[in-house]
């Protein structure tokens, strides 16, 4: 079929299907197919029958929070940009896919690109923006292709561009492809990249809603959030709020990976306990030991915390985050130190290099983990892990930096025995690492005294 998804994306049947319902049913290359399934009804209703304020009120009534990880209410962003009264305002749909393992945005872009376009246009109408930019990670060639077709079709059909639906509303729609990088998903880094600079975060405040792309007020919204907005306008705020928790309504796309029978993409109501997420993904394949919730900046929860609801605040209280919407299930044969190193190394390699604590600090954290894994720790390595992690978060320039030490801190808090066994006895309690596996790597550098000064 023409609208097939990339092979790594598998949508699981369990859960509450809203955004993913039409994936596979609609032809992503055809506007007509999308409209047959009720597409652009929400946009039409908004543009022709509602005032921007009413659209914002409806989104607010639905309780839509940003699905990019922070959970900031979408209506507030839109209202801030609307209230700025600036001559020029921009809406940016963020499909930079910071965490390569999370599949939600990509599935939407490939399976139902018009949904994202529709959401972006609604956001532009509500916030008074004359431009909507869909920023896509360059590696997602299929998604870019389909979004381009969707944008062209929508513009040709007067659903976007000048005088949408015959009204005096105009929104210029464009698709922008940018180099994929972890940090490029950060909203200010995306703005820097869009304006032609290297994608590195800027100081916040000023927030993009005050001073965004080309210094004009901008709404930067995750693609999934925009899709939800389109869904709300075509269904209703009440329908959206019918599932979820009091604080966080609606559904969320979750990627469940690791030691489960059927890893894949789920759409579940917010507040679903983690245990159910694992069950929906076919159940664990081994004895579940821990869950890494939130991607590279997420935290580890242990088996005793499987009852935690998948929701912003409860996860944050437990040390994890919604983050990229990725949940990695680890069983008893997974080494927690090695897993923490994997995530920390990802953050260190993907650091943009701007802030000192991130550029050097995250690398030093990985080096400390390497020494522990190699059973050649320095005397104060455990203190270093805890203190430096705290300080890196404390002085962070962007949210990704603030979260980068989380996998270390959470695993260290829950699985210190594994760290101690590695450091003191060179033994992996999970039986996964052939310790001291890193010793050969460290030896060319002179063992632990890699940079010992000449005296």
């Amino acid at each position: 079929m023409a609208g097939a998804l990339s092979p790594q994306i598998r949508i699981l049947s369990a859960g509450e299907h809203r955004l993913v319902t039409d994936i596979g049913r609609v032809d992503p290359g055809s506007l007509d197919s999308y409209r047959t399934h009720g597409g652009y009804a929400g946009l039409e209703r908004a543009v022709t029958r509602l005032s921007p304020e009413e659209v914002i009120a409806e989104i607010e009534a639905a309780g839509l929070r940003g699905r990019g990880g922070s959970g900031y209410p979408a209506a507030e962003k839109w209202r801030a940009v609307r209230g700025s009264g600036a001559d020029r305002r921009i809406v940016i749909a963020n499909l930079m896919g910071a965490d390569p393992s999370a599949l939600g945005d990509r599935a939407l872009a490939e399976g139902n690109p018009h949904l994202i376009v529709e959401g972006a246009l609604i956001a532009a109408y509500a916030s008074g923006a004359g431009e909507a930019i869909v920023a896509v990670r360059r590696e997602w060639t299929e998604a870019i292709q389909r979004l381009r077709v969707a944008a062209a079709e929508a513009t040709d059909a007067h659903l976007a561009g000048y005088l949408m639906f015959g009204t005096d509303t105009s929104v210029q729609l464009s698709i922008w492809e940018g180099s994929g990088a972890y940090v490029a998903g950060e909203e200010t880094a995306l703005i820097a990249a869009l304006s032609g600079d290297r994608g590195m975060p800027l100081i916040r405040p000023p927030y993009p809603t005050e001073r965004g792309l080309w210094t004009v007020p901008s709404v930067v919204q995750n693609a999934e959030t925009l899709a939800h907005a389109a869904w709300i306008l075509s269904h209703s705020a009440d329908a959206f709020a019918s599932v979820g928790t009091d604080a966080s309504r609606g559904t969320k796309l979750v990627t469940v990976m690791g030691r489960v029978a059927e890893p894949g993409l789920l759409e579940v109501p917010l507040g679903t306990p983690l245990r159910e997420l694992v069950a929906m993904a076919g159940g664990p394949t081994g004895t579940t030991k821990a869950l890494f919730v939130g991607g590279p900046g997420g935290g580890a929860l242990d088996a005793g915390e499987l009852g935690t609801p998948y929701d912003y605040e409860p996860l944050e209280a437990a040390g994890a985050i919604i983050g990229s919407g990725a949940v990695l299930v680890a069983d008893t044969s997974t080494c927690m130190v090695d897993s923490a190193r994997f995530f920390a190394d990802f953050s260190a390699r993907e650091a943009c290099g701007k802030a000192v604590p991130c550029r050097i600090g995250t690398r030093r954290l990985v080096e400390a983990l390497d020494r522990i894994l190699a059973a050649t720790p320095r005397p104060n390595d455990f203190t270093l892990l805890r203190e430096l992690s705290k300080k890196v978060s404390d002085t962070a320039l962007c949210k990704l930096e603030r979260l980068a030490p989380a996998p270390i801190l959470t695993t260290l808090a829950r699985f210190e025995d594994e760290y101690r066994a590695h450091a003191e006895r060179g033994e992996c309690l999970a039986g996964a690492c052939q310790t001291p596996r890193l010793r050969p790597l460290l030896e060319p550098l002179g063992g632990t005294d890699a940079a010992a000064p000449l005296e």
Partner: protein
Amino acid sequence: MGFGTTNGHATGNGNGTGGGKVTDYTPLWPMVPGTRKISVTINGTQVEAEEGQTILQACRVLGIDIPTLCYEPKLAPYGACRICAVEVEGVEGTPISCGTTITEGMVITTHSERVIENRRMVLELIFSDHDAYCLPPCQFKCPTRVDIPGYLKQNTLGNWEEATRILKRSLPFPAILGRVCPAPCETHCRREEVDTAIAIRDSHRYCADRVLEVDAPAPIPWPKDPPTGRRVAVIGAGPAGMSAAYYLQLRGHHCDVFEAEPEQGGMLRYGIPQYRLPKGWMDRELNHVWELGAELKPNMRLGRDFHLGDIIDDYDAIYVGIGCYKSNELGIPGEDADGMVNALENLYNSTRGVPVPRLKGARVVVIGGGFTAIDCTRTSVRQGAAEVTLVYRRDLKDMPAADEAHEAIEEGARLIFQAAPTRIMTDENNKVTGVEFQRMKLGEPDEKGRRRPEPMAGTEFVVECDTVLGAIGQGPDLGWIESEPEEIRAGLEVSRRGTLVSEEHIFRTDVPKVFASGDVRTGAATVVEAIGEGRRASYAIDYWLRGHDLDDPQVRRIVTEPQPNFLTIVPFTDDVKEPRAIMGKLEADERKTNFNEYEFGYTGDQAMAEASRCLQCTCEAIGHCDLREAAIEYETTLNMAIDERSIQDNPYVGVNHGYGRDETHSFILRDYSRCIDCGRCAQVCKEIVGAGCYDFIGKGLDSLVTTADYVSLNETPCVSCGRCAETCPVGALMPRPRVLETYQLDISRCIFCGICADACPYDALRCGPEFEFSEYQRDLPMLDILEMSDRERPTR
């Protein structure tokens, strides 16, 4: 001009250095008229700030010192270095002060424990990937911190006077030290990794000698400051006192130098033998102090001819640098025997040219391994002793005067190591007949790394002799304290080691006005240490006389001259080998019968060749490096002000980069290893100049601010304006040293576009009112730009 260049811009204002204590902050400059005032709380004090200011700007107005690295006032805040972070009540984490606008009622803490720890973390992280020097190891190891690469560079050009002037910035007597210094610098020279260390001492001996030869006023480090009307009494005309007087005199304070002996020099004159330091030559150099206006008051011994109590009201400050003149006792039986000679007295007599008949034909045993011992040994040889034996309890390599040991052996002395005296053998008339020694074995190393000698029972042996010179160290003679008036006596404390106690680094005693340093404070040490102590005491005295509070951290930061030590060295691999130049000297047979100086010194060619071997391992930006200043303030590396911390204590040491150096551009020198990736050059080049030569490259730890694909600046749109070098907070981008040229302006061809004035980064050309008017005077053929610049014009 201050003292040398190392102070940088540490001379901030005096009011408010943070520390969290409640202070009355007063704005350093008035508010811009018409701006709205808002009230905020900074460090517990209610203050007023202008609306729209950032926290950093408000704090700078109030004189609160927040460090910055990536902050460039001309540009929007960038937020890369994270060092200017502060704590704001109700805000998560530590927001950066350069990017946070101040709002009504904000409660800000600029120096809380958490903020300081975070700043320290940032600095230590930077240092863990900062493969660069501040000071070269030689300069760091010299107690005077003399600019060794600097004067060697002048030596290569044969510019002896300028070399001497550089030396005298921190070491007033280079010719004297060129003869008597044990040269701690040379043992740390990086040239050692290539072939042999640079002859640093012999090199400055040469250039200083050339300057002493000419009959002209000696070069002075900086123009003498106008007289302040303050008077300082310097007690002791030895190395410490004379260097203190030299720098105090240069700073405009009048010095009276009290000396117990009839002539100047102290131990230089009365301790060091003529063959090592010819006294006439020494006087020529010491006289530079009197040329600056100081006065010698000879034959004035403290405690005998005067007391501190007598002069304390006549002077604004008193500096005590009386040295160590009391020999330590051996502490073994038979020390009162006939034939025991005081080592210092022996040297005192022989340096004055008084013959010591007792030594003629004598069989002498010298006990000790220091400079006094070796001087006694070699003097005894020259006095005609029949047999001289030096006995030292440690090994040769642990001997302080090891350099001279082989020369003493050449001259006929016998050296015995690892033996300590147990008793003096005497006959029935209490005359010395020999000394009994016991063999020592070397035990565990002590804190200096020297192995502690331990006696071995049953290994006693006897060296027969008739004269014994005990030279096992000296202490200061502090008997004069007893005769001081009560209020002074109470403030002078004697340490357990018998030295006079004065505060480290600022050399203040508990008696107001009285400072002390040199051997009297440290115990017997080398000449170069005494000179370093004397100079640093002069800084403290100068600041105190100028009304600064020596407890103020800003002042302390300057007077203590803390030196961060970043010695992560990339091994030097250049294999061009040039041997070290060796000075000529007399053979042992020729020198052992007289007291003539036996080393000839370099020839000019030798001195130039030797200096050109120097690898110049120094940072050009040392005087104006923001990173270094912050490192000193936050004690992230070795810092003498608090306790000794070194790079080894940096917990974050790990993988680091050794980048190269780009010298291809004619005006801008780039050294990536010093780059801290603050991004200022990239911002300035893009936003102000418009060329956009630099940006970040790479990801993670490997990211670096440089040109696209690391090409030479010549391949970029660089306009050679130098703004990148101007904004660089460290030494990564520097204006390349070059011969200055004179530019000429042909005004008849000028179209008054103003681009030159716009582009000039240093405001050498400016658009004044005349510049506009001059358009109407184009008939004038040539207008001299210099003439234009001389005219009075309102400053903007």
